[in-house]
């Protein structure tokens, strides 16, 4: 046989949609039947929804109450605070995004989505100013992206977010001489986001600490952490809210503690207990050889934990953690039990208005779309992070 430098190319294969359909949808009889059945089901569901959406639904309820869905009973004359925060957050997101993707072009879909959002705001005019300010926010994202690409190191943005977070909390409350805002006036998506962000940011370090504590060699620390985790995990979130609502003031001498703060404490404690168990799984997945190697080169126990074990443990459980954060985001809807009007609960207030009786479908459809957008953003962000952290390519 004659030796050749060029091995024969793999057999040519022109991908067509007919070929794809034949291989994936109609490869055998069972498969074909399933394809037809699921196809029929999907068409039925989508067409029924579409008929409802385009002929029966009274979508007027959404633009008429958009402000309430977004911010609840936030005082109208103080709404500039939320606009300011929104635009700052949009700008910073753009800056961060740009700083993380040096030399990359923005994908086309971002322009499309940006344009749709801006046009939608211009056309619908849901709030008196949104027609101008929403496009401004969209432009802020793009402007931030291009500035971030050339001028901002991504490390600075991590610090910036902490500043923005505390700045936002201040902006949402403090009186600047023209009347402040009370947390009980927070509502709708604003309240949902504040509860979720505080819950995620606060429960993460607490959960990691509990996980480390539970695996600690000191029996007292390990016992305290184990009891805390098991008690909280054995309690429904609704009960945790009631406990936070009823017992926290009792423990702190009947002080008048902000109900939103109490809800945040409840969510944080609840989420931390679950997080601790996820992280513990990650800690146990790190091979003992890693600790030995770290100790053998002279790292201390704390350095080994922080530099070697924890990064690997968190990477291993990242999908589980994100799943839990998405769960937390949606579980904030349970605060309606203690009388807080977040995104899901606010629909009750809207429907109690005689003008909007019987609009539950429209409201809940919209609300679920909003929940989906945020949840999907979290899970796709996590997928990108996983890809970035994968060191075995």
């Amino acid at each position: 046989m004659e030796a050749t430098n060029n091995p024969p190319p793999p057999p040519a294969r022109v991908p067509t949609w007919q070929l794809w359909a034949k291989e994936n949808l109609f490869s055998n009889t069972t498969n074909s039947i399933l394809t037809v059945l699921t196809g029929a089901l999907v068409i039925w569901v989508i067409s029924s929804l579409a008929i409802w959406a385009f002929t029966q639904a009274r979508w007027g309820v959404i633009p008429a109450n958009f402000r309430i869905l977004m911010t609840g009973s936030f005082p109208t004359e103080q709404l500039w605070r939320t606009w300011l925060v929104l635009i700052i957050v949009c700008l910073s997101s753009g800056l961060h995004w740009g700083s993380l993707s040096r030399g990359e072009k923005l994908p086309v879909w971002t322009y499309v989505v940006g344009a749709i959002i801006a046009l939608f705001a211009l056309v619908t005019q849901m709030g008196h100013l949104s027609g101008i300010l929403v496009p401004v926010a969209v432009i802020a994202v793009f402007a931030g992206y291009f500035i971030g690409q050339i001028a901002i190191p991504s490390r600075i943005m991590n610090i910036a977010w902490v500043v923005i977070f505390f700045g936002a909390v201040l902006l949402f409350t403090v009186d600047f001489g023209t009347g402040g805002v009370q947390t009980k006036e927070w509502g709708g998506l604003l309240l949902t986001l504040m509860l979720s962000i505080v819950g995620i940011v606060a429960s993460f370090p607490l959960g990691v600490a509990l996980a480390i504590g539970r695996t600690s060699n000191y029996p007292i620390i390990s016992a305290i952490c184990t009891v805390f985790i098991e008690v909280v995990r054995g309690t429904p979130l609704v009960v945790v809210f009631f406990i936070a609502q009823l017992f926290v003031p009792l423990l702190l001498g009947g002080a008048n503690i902000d109900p939103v703060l109490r809800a945040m404490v409840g969510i944080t404690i609840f989420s931390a207990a679950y997080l601790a168990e996820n992280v513990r799984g990650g800690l146990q997945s790190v091979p003992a050889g890693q600790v030995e190697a770290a100790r053998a080169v002279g790292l201390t126990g704390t350095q080994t934990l922080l530099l070697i074990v924890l990064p690997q443990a968190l990477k291993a459980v990242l999908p589980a953690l994100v799943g839990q954060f998405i769960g937390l985001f949606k579980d904030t809807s349970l605060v309606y039990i203690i009388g807080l009007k977040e995104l899901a609960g606010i629909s009750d207030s809207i429907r109690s208005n005689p003008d909007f009786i019987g609009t539950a479908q429209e409201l809940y459809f919209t609300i679920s779309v909003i929940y989906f957008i945020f949840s999907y953003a979290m899970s796709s962000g996590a997928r990108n992070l996983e890809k970035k952290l994968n060191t075995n390519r």
Partner: protein
Amino acid sequence: MTTPVKDLSNAPVVIAASQVNKYYGQFHALKDVNLEVKRGEVVVVIGPSGSGKSTFIRCINRLEEHQQGKIMVQGIELSNDVRNIDAIRRDVGMVFQSFNLFPHLSVLQNITLAPMRVKKIEKSEAEKIGRQLLERVGIPEQADKFPGQLSGGQQQRVAIARALAMQPKIMLFDEPTSALDPEMIKEVLDVMKELARSGMTMMCVTHEMGFAREVADRIVFFDKGQVVEEATPDEFYHHPKTDRAKLFLSQILGH
């Protein structure tokens, strides 16, 4: 192959173990082990699996704790005093059977981590040393890859470079080639031979007889937790004194 001419008669003792005993629960893993290693000496530790040879070298940097007896390393006694343990670990490098590289760090970061965190060396300086060490173990081009992207032999060479980055006085090798494919064993042994010739004090648990004959000053044969025989490589391989050593040699040479 001739045994390298090395005069160790005046060299100071850097590892001194006397009457060391270790138990795992009821199991008596090390029984009255006495062993001295001099500066610059290369000691190869062999023995059947479960004989305590790995346990013993893991006691020398306190990855395992001995219950009785005394281990002195560079004149410092290994006790429960954390400062002593830290001091000894800074001077003793270790290479593991399963490499144990840090998978989330690049090759260069694996090497520079301890010098930067333990010795507080500047990053630029640590990276310079790291690249020199990668040159020494023959894989300078792999500096920015991650361990998972390297072959087993390359990973083990990185592990050696990582240990050397702390400029240890003593290197411990715990079956460094046992997890490697045959064609990769040589590249790791070559690095170890170079290290031995450079005058490093080494204790190696290994069955690589070519390596032992070429660079070892002494063979220590372990069985059932005891040092059964100590001899030069030539003596040990050609004229083993004990029946257990004869049996062991016939088993590893027999196939």
